[in-house]
């Protein structure tokens, strides 16, 4: 009897061990998710440390002009003798923190607008959502160009322009999520216990929409980087001689024969945007509770099947 219980306990412990061992990797099982996370983390690290370890000062014109990628200059030099590799890495320190900041700002503005509209409804909802529609009605890049151009070309104004065009999607998503949760019994129960609408929003509703908002924000980082680089490419963002990927590509057009001028900044944008998109996709899979349950069930079935086979 006691021996039997002993083995039972051991299998329980084994099963628990399996589960804890499986849970983390399962969440990250998609290879693209891991790849995206690795690249994104690498770029963020570069963004915060590049200024200490780049081989050359990004704006120093000390090298031979238009040198091909090689041993002493890893990715070549540009038309004024500046090291592309150093400029590329320094470009990350400009673009990535600004992109993160603008996504956070857009998310905060959009969430507040959407939550207020969805929770209070009626004329507040109508007013806020028509304003949102107004902004959404313009093509993103065109509107950002208009805003940036009217504020004057600078990186800071480009960020403001990007915030102006990217908050509406957060407002839309938040509103629909809040509308769905507003009628939930626990929200009503909270109100019956004397909670003010603001408290009800912050305690009962917002914690329950954090997951989807995070996914949206992660997916949006890529778009934000594209938008910032695009504005810089058009001359509305970073001004020369600031090392910025978009403006680097823009100046590469003048030296079309030197392929390395444009390809490497382009690759930098491609990798960082793809990485954040993969990361966002993986996050969505992880945070989707129904997917989680489906995965667990599947895992349980496979484990019981292998158990039965053994």
């Amino acid at each position: 009897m006691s021996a039997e219980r002993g083995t039972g306990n051991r299998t329980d412990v084994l099963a628990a061990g399996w589960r804890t061992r499986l849970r983390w990797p399962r969440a990250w099982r998609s290879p693209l998710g891991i790849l995206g996370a690795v690249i994104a983390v690498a770029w963020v690290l570069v963004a915060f440390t590049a200024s200490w370890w780049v081989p050359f000062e990004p704006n120093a014109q000390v090298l031979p002009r238009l040198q091909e990628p090689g041993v002493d200059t890893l990715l070549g030099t540009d038309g004024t003798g500046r090291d592309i590799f150093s400029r590329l890495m320094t470009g990350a320190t400009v673009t990535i923190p600004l992109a993160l900041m603008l996504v956070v700002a857009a998310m905060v503005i959009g969430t507040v607008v959407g939550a207020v509209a969805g929770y209070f409804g009626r004329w507040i909802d109508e007013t806020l959502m028509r304003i949102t529609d107004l902004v959404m009605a313009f093509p993103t890049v065109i509107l950002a160009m208009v805003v940036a151009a009217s504020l004057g070309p600078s990186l800071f104004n480009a960020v403001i322009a990007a915030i102006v065009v990217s908050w509406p999607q957060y407002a839309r998503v938040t509103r629909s999520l809040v509308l769905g949760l507003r009628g939930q019994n626990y929200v009503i129960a909270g109100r019956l216990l004397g909670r003010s609408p603001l408290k009800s929003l912050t305690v009962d509703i917002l914690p329950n929409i954090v997951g989807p908002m995070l996914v949206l924000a992660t997916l949006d980082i890529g778009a934000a980087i594209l938008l910032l680089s695009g504005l810089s490419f058009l001359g509305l963002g970073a001004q020369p001689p600031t090392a910025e990927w978009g403006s680097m590509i823009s100046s590469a057009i003048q030296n079309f024969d030197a392929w390395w001028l444009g390809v490497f900044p382009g690759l930098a944008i491609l990798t960082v945007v793809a990485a954040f998109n993969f990361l966002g996709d993986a996050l969505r899979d992880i945070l989707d509770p129904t997917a989680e349950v489906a995965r667990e069930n599947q895992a349980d079935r496979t484990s019981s099947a292998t158990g039965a086979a053994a």
Partner: protein
Amino acid sequence: MTERIVLDARDLVVRYPGSPPVVAVDGVSFTIAAGETVALVGESGSGKSSVARAVAGIDRPAEGNVRFDEGPVEPLGVRRRARSLTAIQMVFQDPSTSLNPRRRVGDQVADGIAAARARGLEGSRPEEWFERVGLDPSWVSRFPHQFSGGQKQRIAIARALAARPHLLVADEPISALDASTQSSVAALMRDLVAELGAGMLFISHDLAVVQRIADRTLVMYAGRVMESGDTAKLWADPQHPYTRALLAAIPKPDGTGRIPAAPTLDDRASWTTVPPITD
């Protein structure tokens, strides 16, 4: 009688927009005294839940008025609910949406306690309430998804009662539970409400449970109260044809396997023509 009336609903009319508007509740009046359990029964679509929501002040009735403890019930709006009105609490039908999935259940019961304290009543601890509703007090730090439906409903009841309500509105609190937990949860609610000296509006379509726990019963059909009166009397001697049909619809465990016949359309049409019977 000198009983204190906690709830006085007069000529309630609830309409939902549409063309023509749906009249869910059509002139319902009733009172609930402290310590009394009033059951509201009727088929689905008869307006029971609409009455509950109007009485608790979740929706504004189109006509009529609701008075609670001698004051009007202001429907939930943009403002925070008046303190005195937190003495109306509600237990919902679906236990899976009654608790905030992101907060620990102990904290949610503590919200109820805080509401009681805000009205100047003595405080208590979530653990005590867990014990009262028959749950392990050490579970207060768990999250709702770790509980079964019946346990969640007990937690929702604990939260509502921790606010020390004078009136508990229970909107089909047992219909989402399995048969073995239904009567225990219903009995639990009745006992705890009696202990607090509160009134309870108990909505159910489970007539067997209603018969056991309710002092008075209101029978609703098509938005109107067809018959009301003392539960035992109503059960023994139903006057209205709809009440009789409702009682006849209870399957009897007599071993013959007979399923009660569904009422015909003619029967249904005849019920609305018979005037309501009240005592």
